[in-house]
């Protein structure tokens, strides 16, 4: 499944595009195989989370000042250790949302964050959440994490794994404070939490 997803996003072609599929598979093998020691391969769980991250871009509306220009890219940032490997790049490659191309950025520290629209905060940063989240206050950044207690601490969306399924726990007030509009469709299947709860 992962292979197929990546192929489609990379090539932006249909499932019937057989030569494309083969070429993509080869490319993936080469990249994955060569870069194995440097970048860890994403688990199935993170592959899904990568897709979800990308999907958030379609259910969330940013204030207009978040995109000064039409061509301003939509930045998905990963803070801390990257659990996605190359998969997130592959997922968003060639994609765009409302004409904004998608760009992946990696940050080691919150101070490095300049322009960012969706920020995935890795589990490696769990201990520093109480510093990271307030530092982002006032900025229209959708904060996502799978860290424990993320929503209570002012995070917006948390991935919760239940019976092998990934569910969303959303704090709409936090999003509202950041001038972000989360589609009611996204809220519908999600678990809604108020700050201070998790």
């Amino acid at each position, binding site marked *: *499944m992962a292979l*197929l*997803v990546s192929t*489609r996003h990379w090539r932006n072609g249909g*499932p019937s595009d057989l030569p494309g599929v083969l070429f993509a598979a080869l490319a993936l093998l080469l990249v994955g195989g060569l870069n194995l020691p440097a970048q860890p391969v994403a688990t199935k769980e993170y592959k*899904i989370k990568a897709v*979800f991250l990308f*999907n958030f871009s*379609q*259910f969330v509306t940013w204030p207009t000042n978040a995109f000064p220009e039409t061509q301003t890219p939509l930045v998905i940032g990963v803070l801390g250790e990257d659990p996605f490997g190359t998969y997130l790049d592959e997922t968003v490659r060639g994609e765009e*949302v*409302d004409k904004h191309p998608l760009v992946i950025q990696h940050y080691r520290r919150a101070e490095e964050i300049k322009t960012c629209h969706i920020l995935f905060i890795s589990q490696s940063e769990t201990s520093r959440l109480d510093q990271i989240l307030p530092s982002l206050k006032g900025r229209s950044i959708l904060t996502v994490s799978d860290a424990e207690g993320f929503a209570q601490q002012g995070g917006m969306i948390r991935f919760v794994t239940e019976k092998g*399924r*990934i*569910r*969303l726990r959303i704090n709409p007030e936090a999003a509202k404070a950041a001038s972000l509009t989360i*589609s009611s*469709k*996204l809220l*519908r*299947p*999600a678990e809604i939490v108020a700050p201070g709860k998790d």
Partner: protein
Amino acid sequence: MRLKDAPIQRKLLVIILLTTITALLMMHGTLLIYEFLRFQRATTRQLSTVGKIIAGNSTAALAFANQSDATEILSALNAERYVTAAALYDKEGKLFSKYPANLPDDALPAAAQKDGFQSEHSYLAGCQPVMQGEKRLGTLYLRFDMGTLNREWLRISISIALAVIAVVILVAYLLSRKLQQRISEPIRALAGTAKAVYDRQDYSVRAKKFGEDEVGLLTDAFNQMLQKLEEKNTELQVTFEQLRVAHQEILGLNRDLEGRVEQRTAELKTVNKELEAFSYSVSHDLRAPLRHIDGFLELLQKKAGTALDPKCQRYVNLIAESAKEMGTLIDNLLSFSRMGRAAMCAAPVNLEQLVRDTIKELELEAAGRDIVWKIGALPEVRADQALLRQVLINLISNALKYSRTRPRTEIEIGCPPDPNGEHVVFIRDNGVGFDMKYADKLFGVFQRLHEADEFEGTGIGLANVQRIIGRHGGRTWAEGVVDAGATFYFSLPKSPSPQHETQTHFTRGRQPEGHRALARSP
């Protein structure tokens, strides 16, 4: 009953109802088809709308792989009774969620199909994309039970149509029953009048007029015709009455006339009979004195023959000759008078044989003369042989007599074919002939055209011929040129009319009296 023979009322009713029903059916049929198409389109649109709502709602479920949420969204479809199956397929076309939840997987397409709806059997089924913004997140498959829906729709539509048609027909029937009378009533009235005229021969009735339409015109024309008929009928009756009276008068006059004719005929017959009896007795009675004269002349010649001087002797001879001539005259007269009284016995007669026999009989008269006989084919006729023989003797001896001055006598006897139902026999000679202005006198009694010292004769022969031929129902006539011969004709009918038989009877009936007269007279 066939419509052809049905009363005009029913015809009109049937025509109106048929027209109405046809129009209604056509209208409803068209409407039904139009409504059906519209319904189909509306249903498809509705389905598409439902699909769009479901697809719109299920984007997040697909985007975040929330199957239970997707199932919940799909379960909202149970509000749509005719959606029998639905399914969501993810981006890769794999089955993600289905409705109803207990539907076996093989009842659905294994993978997402091309977008768009198509009819499969009685179902309308198809896929539509699940989009979030411009991003395609998956595919929604919907199956719609069009068959059941259509059937239900059709059942309701047809029930309504039938109800409407029934009501309209009922109203049309009631209306046309009332309105058709405006057409049928005048025609019926007219027909009724015509029947009354025909049945009762009553020309005084008049048809009632209802309006100025064609039937009104017809009624007028019919009434005028009746008027004319009535006038003519009255005229005819008057004329007939006049004719009847005239006829009665004529009948009366006729009866009168007939009576008178009968009376006159009877009188005439009596007179004629008396005349005949008289002439017979006179002729008969004349013989006795003549015989005395003859006898005493003979005695005188015997006793005083020598004593008489030659002059006296010549006187005596003249007396004897005259007496002899008178005897012949009396004989002829007797035979002529007998001719009218003798019974006639008609039988087939071979005319040719009879002619030859007659010529042989007349040999003595022809002795020593140069005579050429030309006898043509002669038919068999129906006549009294003895009487016909008399006719031939008279005519042939006449021909011989009047041609004896010729050095060579030519006598021709023939009977040219005649289509007029009678045989015409002619006897032609090359004798002295006669002047045609006397032609009508030839056949009269004692009528002679030549002096007795030139050609001897009594003037009774041709009269006798005419009488005999007349009794046979034929005619006699003659043609001649002075000094260039004469032709005598007589005709005999091919089938003798019974009138002459009656005459024969009549004559026969009278005969005894004649005989009595004859017996009494000597």
